[in-house]
C-alpha cells in the first residue's frame, strides 16, 4: 500500500467521528492512525456532542452513526450539510442496507461505510470520499434508479420545475447504475465505458447529490401541499 508522504501534494484528510460504539471508534482511529494522510479531527459519542462538534472548524470527512443514544444521526448529517458545506458525510452502518443508506443520502450524505470492513478498506473508503468519489452497492443502485424513475415519469410525484429537471439522471449516470445492479465493480465499469475508475465514483457522488436535491424539492412540495410552507 503506497502512502503519500505527509505534507506533500495530497493534503491531510481531517476526519471527524460521531460514533457511540467505543470498539468501532477504536478500530477506526487505529485504521486511520496507520495511514499517514488521514487525521482524526474530532470525536463525539452522542448526537448532542456531534452537533457541538459542528461548531468547530470543518473537517473533510464526517463519519456518522445513525443510532446514537440521544437521537438520530440523521440530524447530525443535516446540520453538517448546513454548517460544514465542504465536508463529505459518510454514514457508518452494519449491513449497508437500503433503509439506512438511502435515508442518509437523501439528507445529504455522500457515502457509507460498512462497520465490518477491514482497516485497509476503511482507509480506502475515506480517501475515496475525500477525493470526491462515492461507494455504492447493487441494491442501493437499484433503489436509486427506482427513485429517479418515480420522479421522472411517476403520476403521483410532484411536477418537476425546470431547474429540477436537470437533477434527473443523465444517460451515462443511468448506465453506470444499471451496470452496478448487474454486479460489475467500479473498475470493470470504468473499462466497459472507457472511463477512469475515479470518474465512475464521481458519477455516483453526482447521482447522490441529485437524489438529495430531488428529495428536498419533494419535501418542499409535500410541505406546500400540506400547508406547512406559505406560497
Amino acid at each position: 500500500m503506497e502512502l503519500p508522504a505527509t505534507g506533500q501534494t495530497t493534503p491531510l484528510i481531517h476526519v471527524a467521528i460521531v460514533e457511540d460504539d467505543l470498539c468501532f471508534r477504536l478500530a477506526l482511529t487505529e485504521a486511520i492512525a496507520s495511514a499517514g494522510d488521514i487525521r482524526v479531527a474530532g470525536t463525539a459519542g452522542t448526537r448532542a456532542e456531534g452537533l457541538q462538534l459542528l461548531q468547530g472548524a470543518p473537517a473533510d470527512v464526517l463519519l456518522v452513526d445513525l443510532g446514537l443514544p440521544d437521537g438520530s444521526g440523521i440530524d447530525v448529517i443535516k446540520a453538517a450539510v448546513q454548517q460544514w458545506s465542504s465536508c463529505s458525510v459518510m454514514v457508518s452502518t452494519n449491513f449497508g442496507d437500503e433503509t439506512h443508506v438511502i435515508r442518509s443520502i437523501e439528507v445529504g450524505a455522500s457515502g457509507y461505510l460498512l462497520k465490518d470492513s477491514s482497516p485497509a478498506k476503511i482507509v480506502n473508503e475515506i480517501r475515496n470520499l475525500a477525493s470526491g468519489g462515492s461507494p455504492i452497492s447493487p441494491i442501493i443502485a437499484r433503489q436509486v434508479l427506482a427513485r429517479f424513475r418515480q420522479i421522472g415519469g411517476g403520476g403521483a410525484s410532484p411536477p418537476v420545475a425546470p431547474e429540477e429537471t436537470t437533477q434527473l439522471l443523465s444517460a451515462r449516470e443511468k448506465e453506470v447504475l444499471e451496470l452496478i445492479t448487474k454486479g460489475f465493480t467500479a473498475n470493470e465499469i470504468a473499462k466497459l465505458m472507457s472511463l477512469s475508475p475515479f470518474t465512475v465514483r464521481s458519477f455516483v457522488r453526482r447521482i447522490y447529490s441529485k437524489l438529495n436535491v430531488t428529495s428536498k424539492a419533494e419535501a418542499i412540495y409535500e410541505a406546500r401541499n400540506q400547508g406547512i410552507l406559505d406560497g
Partner: protein
Amino acid sequence: MKPGIRGFWTANSVRTSTLRSAVIDRAPRRFLKNLPALAALVFSVTLLVALGAFLSLAGSGIQRSGECLHLTKASWQEVETPGYSAPPASLDSHSLPQAWHATALPLTMHPLATAPAGPANLITWVRLGVDGPQAITASWALYGIRLKTDGPIAIYINGKLMYRAQQRGQQWNSLFTPLWVGLEPGVSDTPVREIVIRLEHSPAYPVAVSSLWLGPADALRGRYQVRQWLQEGLPAMLNAAFLAVGVFALFVWLKRCHEPGYLLFFNLSAIAFAAHLHYYVDLPIAHDWFGWLVLNSLCWLLTAVHFLLRLLHGRPLRWLSRGMIAAPLLIGVASLPLPWALPNSPPMLAAFYAVELLMAMTVGFVGGICTWRSSREGRLVVVAIAISVLLGMSDWALHNNVIGPEGWFLGAYTNGVTFTLLGLLMYRRYVNAIDEVEQVNAGLAQRLRLREVELEESHQRLREIEQRQLLSDERQRLMQDMHDGLGSTLISAIRSVEQGRMRDIEVSQLLKDCMDDLKLAIDSMEPVEADLLLLLATLRFRLEPRMESANVALMWNVQELPALSWLDPSSALNILRIVQECIANVLRHTRATVIRVATSAAADGVQVIIEDNGQGFDVAATLWRAGGRGLHNQQRRAQAVDGRVAWVSGETGTRFTLWLPLQRGNLAVM
C-alpha cells in the same frame, strides 16, 4: 281472491301513522321554503271561492227579495175524476166546487193507506190569491221548489192556462226540478190576482205543493238556479267525475291486471253512474228497462260495495257474498219489464226497496264488524255506507211526505259520498305508494352503504390475515435459515472457543462467515423484482472482501437474464445460499486462483455457472459420503425452487451449474 293481491288495497295502519307524523313535521318547513307554491295554492283557492261567491250572490238576486211576493196561503180541494183529462185552456175558479179548505203552504197531503176501491184518479186544486203591488213593466216569474204529483200539472194565472207539465205522467227528474213559470209583460199585462194549480194524480199518491214566489224574473232566477244546481247540477257533475275517475282506474287495471281493486273501482263507478242517472233524465217513470235499471243498479251497487269491503278486510265471507249475488239476481228477474212478468205494483216496489235496505244494512254491519279493528279504510267505507243509507232515507221521507216538499233530495249525493270515499282511498294509496318508494330508495341507499362498509371490513380482515400469513411465513423461513446456518456455526464456534481448540484467527474467520450469512439473509429480504442478476450482484458485493483476502480473482461474465416472476424472498435466500456455498467450497477446498461466474438463458430456464481452476473433487464420492452435507444442502435448496444443481469436476477445475426454471407451477413449496 289470492292473498297477495291485497297489497295495494290493504291499509297498513301502523306505517301510515308514522308516515303521517313525519309528513306533518316536514310540512311547515316545506311551505315556508316554497313560497311560490304557497302563492299558487292561495291564488287557486281564492279564485274558486271568489267564483262561488260571485255566482251564488250576484246571480241569486236574494238581495232583491223585497220585490218578490212569497205566497204561503192557499186553499185546496180534491175532485174525483174518471181518468186523466186535458186541462181546459181557461178556467174560472168560481166554476169549481166551492169546497175550498184554507191552508198554509207548503201543503202536504196524506192519502189514506186503506183507501177503498175508489175513483180511478183525483184532481187536487190549489188556489192562491195574490194581492200586493206589482210592476208589470218587466218580466215576471212564478217560482216554486216543487209540485209533487204523478199526473199532469196545469197552472192557471188569472184564469188563463199558463203552464203545463208531466203531460205523460211523472218523469224521473220531476221531483228534482224546481217550478219556473215565466210571465212576459206582453202576454199578460194585468197584475196577477189569482193562481190556480191543477194536479192530477192516482188516489194513493202523496201530493205536495211547496210555497211559491212571485216576482221579477231577475230577482227569482238566482233562487231557481241555485236550487236546480244543488239538486241536479252538482250531483250530475260528481256523477260524471266519478265515472271519469272510474275509467282512469279501468286503464290502470288494464296495465295491472293482478290488482282487482282498480277493476272494482271502475265497476263501482259505472254502477253508481247508472244508479243515479234517474236524477237527471226527463223520461217518464214507467215499467220499462230504464225503470228496471234504476231499481236494480242500487242493488248491484251494494254488491260492489260489499266486494270492496271484502277486499279491504280480506275475509272471504262466502255465504254473505253468495247472498249478495243471489239477491240482485232475484230482484233482477222479478222486476223484469216483460209482458208476462209481475207488474211493478207499489207493494212489490216496497218489497224490493225493503230488500235493498236490508242488504245495505247487512253490508254495512258485517263490513263494520270485519274492518273496524283491522282496516282504517274499511271503517271509512262503513261510515260512508251509513251516510248513504241516511241520505237514502231522507229521499224516502220526501217521497212519502214525511218531510215537506221544500226539503232536499239528498239521495243524489250518495254518489258524491261514494266518490269522495274512493277518492280518499286512492289519494291515500297514491301518497303512501310515493312515500314507500322514497323509503325503499332510502333503504336501498342505506343498505348499499352498509354493504360497502362490510365489504371494506372484510377486505381489511383479509388483508390482515394475509399480512399475518406473510409474517408467519417470513418468520418461519428466517428461523429455518438461522437454525441451519448462523445458529449451528455460532454454537460450534462457542464450543471450540470454550475448549480452547481454536486460534483467534480461526474464530475471527468463523464469525466473518456468520456475518456474511447474516448479510445475505438481510439482502434476501430486499425487493429484487424478479432480477436474478441483481441477486448475484448482491452476492458478489458481499463476498468480494473474502475473495480479495483469499487472493482469488473473480471473472464476472454475466449476461442479461429474463425476469423470474417467482423470485420471492424465500427463493432468493435459497439461491443465495446455493451460490454462497459453492464459492465457499471453492475458497475452502480447491486452492483455485480464478473463479468465473457466468449466466445464460435457455429455452425453459436460466443457468448460473461457476467455474474454478482448482484441483477438483470426486463428485459421486463426496455426494455419497456423509461429509458431503454442503452438496446435499445445495441439492435440497435447488429442489425447493424447482431447480437443479450439477457438478462437473476434473483435475483442471470444477464446473458447477445451477439451473432454474422460468416458470414455476407450484409456488407454495418451501
